[in-house]
C-alpha cells in the first residue's frame, strides 16, 4: 500500500538557462501593495 501520493513535481530546479527571462508581471502591479507574495504570479512563458 502506498502511503504517499505526489501531487506535483516542482520545477524550481529547472535549468538556469531556461529561466529568469524577466518578462513576467511585477507582483506589485497585480494587487499586492504591502504583503509581497511571489508564488501567486504566473510565468510569462507558461501563460502563452
Amino acid at each position: 500500500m502506498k502511503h504517499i501520493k505526489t501531487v506535483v513535481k516542482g520545477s524550481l530546479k529547472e535549468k538556469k538557462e531556461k529561466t529568469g527571462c524577466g518578462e513576467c508581471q511585477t507582483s506589485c502591479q497585480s494587487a499586492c501593495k504591502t504583503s509581497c507574495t511571489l508564488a501567486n504570479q504566473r510565468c510569462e512563458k507558461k501563460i502563452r
Partner: protein
Amino acid sequence: MIHTFTHNGAGFVLDVETGSVHMLDGEAFEAVRRLEQIEKDGGDIDAALKEGGPLMEEISALKSEGLLFSPPDEDAGMPESVVKAMCLHLAHDCNLRCDYCFAKGGAFAGRRELMSAQTAKAAIDFLISVSGKRRNLEIDFFGGEPLLNFEVLKETVSYARGIEAEHGKNFRFTVTTNAYRVTDEMKEYINKEMNNIVVSIDGRPHVHDAVRKTAGGRGSYARVAENAKALLLNREGEYYVRGTFTADNLDFAEDVLHVADMGFSGVSIEPVVTTGANAIKEEHLPAIFAEYDRLAAEYARRRKNGSGFTFFHFMVDLGAGPCRLKRVRGCGAGTEYIAVAPTGDIYPCHQFVGKSGYRLGSVYETGLEESVAKRFEDCNIYNMEDCKNCWAKYYCSGGCAAANYNINGDIQKPYRIGCEMQRKRLEIAIGMAALERMEDE
C-alpha cells in the same frame, strides 16, 4: 529542506528546493514529520531512512528521485537587475483621507501636487532607456488618487503607445484608484486601455467607512461601491478589488466575502502594516489564523459549487508559477521596479517615495544611484538571515522591503508578524491547490 503541514484534515509535505508537494496518509505524516525534525536538528536523514520497511522505502525513493529532502543548488544564480516596471505617481493628492494611509492623505509627507505631462513622458522615455532587452514594460498609474490627473494619464498612454513599436516594447498599464470619482468617460477609457484595474474597498460598509473617509470626514463606501460596480462588473480584463484589514476587524473573512457578494471576482484584502493604534499584534494571530481557515472553507465551497472567486493570497499555481530566479528577490523594488514622484524623482517603490536616503535618481537624469540600487540588489533570500532557513522563502521571497523597513528600520529584516500570516496563508493556498488537483484527477 522540507515542511510538513495539514490542511482540511489532510497531511502534506513540501520539498522546499524543488516546490514538489506530496500528500501523506497518517502514518507517513508522522514519519516524515519525525524526519523533518531530524533534518532541523542537523541529524542524518539517510541513517534514519535505513530503518527499513515499506514506508521508509517509499520516502527513500522520493529522495532518490529528487522530490524530497532536495539540497539547495550551489550555483542557483541571481536574477538580472533590469528595470522594466514603473509606478507613476500622477497625483500626490487625494480626495480621501484614509486613517492608515502610508501616503499621508496622498501628499507623501510633501506638498500636494500633480505630475505634469512632460514629466510623465520623460518617465516613459527613461523606462525605455533602462529596460534593455525586456519587451514587456509595466506602468502603474498611482497616487494619491491618479484619476485626479486623468488628462495626463490619457496623454501618457497615448505617448507610450505611439513609441512602443519603434523601440520593440509592449506597454501594460494598471491604474490603482479609490473609485471615489469616476466619470463615464473614465470608465470607458480605463476599461479599454488598462490591462489591470485595482480599486480600493475594505469590505463591509461600516468597516470601509471607519477608515476610508472624505476630506470632510464622511464615509466613502456608498459612492465607491456604486462606481466600482459600474467600472468593473462588466469588465472582461483583469481587475482586483483590494482592501486592508486592521486589528479593528479581525473578522475580515466577512469583508472578503462581502466584496465577493458584491459580484467582484478578483479580491485581495491585506493585513495593515502599521505601528499605529489599529496595528496587528502577536496576540491577534490566533484569531487571524482561525479567520483564514474559516475563509478557506467557504472559499473552497464556493469554488466547488461554481460560484467561486479569486482571493489573491490563496492563489498559488503549483504547476505554472514563477521560476526560481524570479523568487529570489521579491517584488523587484529598486532592481526591476521603480516609482516616480510628480517631480520626476525616482525611488525603489511607491512606499519609499520621499524617504530620505532612498532617492534613486530622476527621470531627467541618466541611470540610477548605484549605492541605493545595490542595497536592493542585496536584499534577497540568499542574504536575508531570517529567510535562509524558512520553508516559505520561495513563495514570499523575503516579503515587502517597505514593510521590513517601516517596522524594523531594515529592508533585510523581515516583518515577523507579516511572516507568520504569510506562512499561514501559504499552507492554506498550497493545501487547497493540492486538494483541487487531486479531485481533478
